[in-house]
C-alpha cells in the first residue's frame, strides 16, 4: 500500500487568484481559502483539542492570512503557508492557555529510542460500517488527542490531511527525517491505542487511557 498526497488545487490558479486579490478583487479571497477551511480547523483542533478554541484560531488564521497575503511568496504553496500561519496561531493560543502543562507523558519519550509495540493483538480488517458509527469516530479523535503534540501535528498533516512529507516538514519547520520518525511513532502508538481494534469489543468496552502510556 502506497500513499500519495492528495492533490492540491492548481498552483498557478492560486497564484493568479492571489495577484487579483492583491490588485483589489478582495472577494476572491473566499475562493482562495475555500479548499482549506475545514483543513485549518482540523489542524487547529488537533493541536488544541478544543472545538471553540480551534474555531477561533481558524478564524484568526484566515484573517491573518488575508492581512499578510502581500508577504506571501508565490514560489511557495499557498496551502503550506496558510497552514504555517494556522499552526503558529494554534501554538500561540496554546501557550496563552498554558495547555502545555497537560502535556501527555509521551512527550518524555526519546524520539530516537527504540519502540516496542504494546501487544500483538490481531487486527486484520476494518468493518465497513466503522466510520459511520459516531462512537468510533470519537474513539479515534480521543486516541489522537492522547498523543504528544509533536506526534499529533505530524500525524494530522500527513495521515489526516494527506500533505506530503516535504510539505509537512516545511509547515512544521522540521526536517523530513524528523517527520518520518514522528510519523512512525504516531502510527505505532495509535495502533496500540486502538488495538484490539474492530475485530474485538473495542467499540463497546475498551477505554482509551488518555494521558497515560499504555505501551510502556
Amino acid at each position, binding site marked *: 500500500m502506497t500513499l500519495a498526497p492528495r492533490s492540491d488545487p492548481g498552483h498557478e490558479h492560486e497564484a493568479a487568484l492571489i495577484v487579483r486579490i492583491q490588485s483589489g478583487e*478582495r*472577494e476572491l*479571497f473566499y475562493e482562495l481559502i475555500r479548499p482549506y477551511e475545514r483543513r485549518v480547523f482540523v489542524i487547529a483542533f488537533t493541536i488544541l483539542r478544543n472545538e471553540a478554541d480551534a*474555531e477561533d484560531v481558524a478564524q*484568526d488564521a484566515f484573517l491573518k492570512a488575508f492581512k499578510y497575503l502581500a508577504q506571501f511568496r508565490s514560489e511557495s504553496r499557498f496551502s503550506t503557508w496558510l497552514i504555517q500561519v494556522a499552526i503558529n496561531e494554534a501554538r500561540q493560543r496554546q501557550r496563552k492557555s498554558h495547555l502545555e502543562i497537560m502535556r501527555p507523558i509521551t512527550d518524555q519519550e526519546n524520539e530516537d529510542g527504540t519502540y516496542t509495540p504494546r501487544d500483538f493483538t490481531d*487486527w486484520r480488517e476494518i468493518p465497513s460500517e466503522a466510520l459511520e458509527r459516531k462512537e468510533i469516530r470519537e474513539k479515534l479523535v480521543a486516541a489522537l488527542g492522547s498523543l504528544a503534540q509533536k506526534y499529533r501535528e505530524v500525524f494530522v498533516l500527513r*495521515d489526516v490531511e494527506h500533505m506530503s512529507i516535504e510539505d509537512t516538514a516545511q509547515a512544521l519547520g522540521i526536517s523530513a527525517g524528523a517527520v518520518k520518525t514522528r510519523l512512525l511513532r504516531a*502510527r505505532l502508538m495509535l495502533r496500540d491505542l486502538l488495538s484490539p*481494534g474492530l475485530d474485538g469489543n473495542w467499540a463497546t468496552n475498551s477505554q482509551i487511557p488518555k494521558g497515560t502510556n499504555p505501551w510502556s
Partner: protein
Amino acid sequence: MGNEFADSKGDKPVVVACEHVLREISNYFEGDVDPALRQALEEHLAQCPRCQSIHDGMRNVIALYSDEAMFPLPDGFYPRLHGRLADQVEGRRLSRRAWLVSVGVSGALAASAVCAAVLDRLVPRPLSEMSQPARRLPQRLVAIVDGGKIFHVPGCPFMHGTYHMVTAQEAVLEGYTPCTRCMRDALRSAGKVKPDFEGEESAGGATDGK
C-alpha cells in the same frame, strides 16, 4: 524471526529482522523503501505473525484516519467564519466603525479607570496595565518599530524607522507597550474620551485601571 539485516549486494538477498521491520514499516506504507528492501519486508511479513499484526494495525490506522470528515465542524462554522472575514475582505466601512465603537467602549472603560488613576498618579504602574487596551482588541494589527519597545496604531506620526506588523495580543505577550499618543488619538476620534485623558501620558501611559 531473528535474521540479521544485510544490504543487497549482487544476488545476495536482503534479509530483515523484526527490529528492522519495526523501523521501516511506516516508510513501507509511504512507498519510501527501495525495491530490494520492500521485497525483503514482504517476505518477512509473510512468515512472521507478530510483524504482520503490526503491519495490519498500522494499515488500519492509516485507513481509519484518512478522512478529515472524521472531525465534524461545529454547527454554524462557515457563517461565523465568513462573517468575521467580511469586514476585512470586503472592506466594509462598518469594519472601521465597528472598530471605533469597540475602541470607544475601551476608551470609556479606560476613562473611568483614569479617574481612579489620577488619585494615585505617583504610584508606578506595571507594564501589564499599560497594555490593557491592547488586550481589549487582541486581534487588532499593530506596528512594532524594529528595535523599539512600543507598539503603534499603523500610521502613527510618532513611529519612525522600519517596523513589522503583529496582532496587539502578540505584542502584549512579547512585552511591548502601547503608544499612548496614537491610542489617545484613536480614542479621541471615537468621540468617547474626555479631555482629561491627555493627562494620561504623564501617568505613565496607563489606559486602564487596576
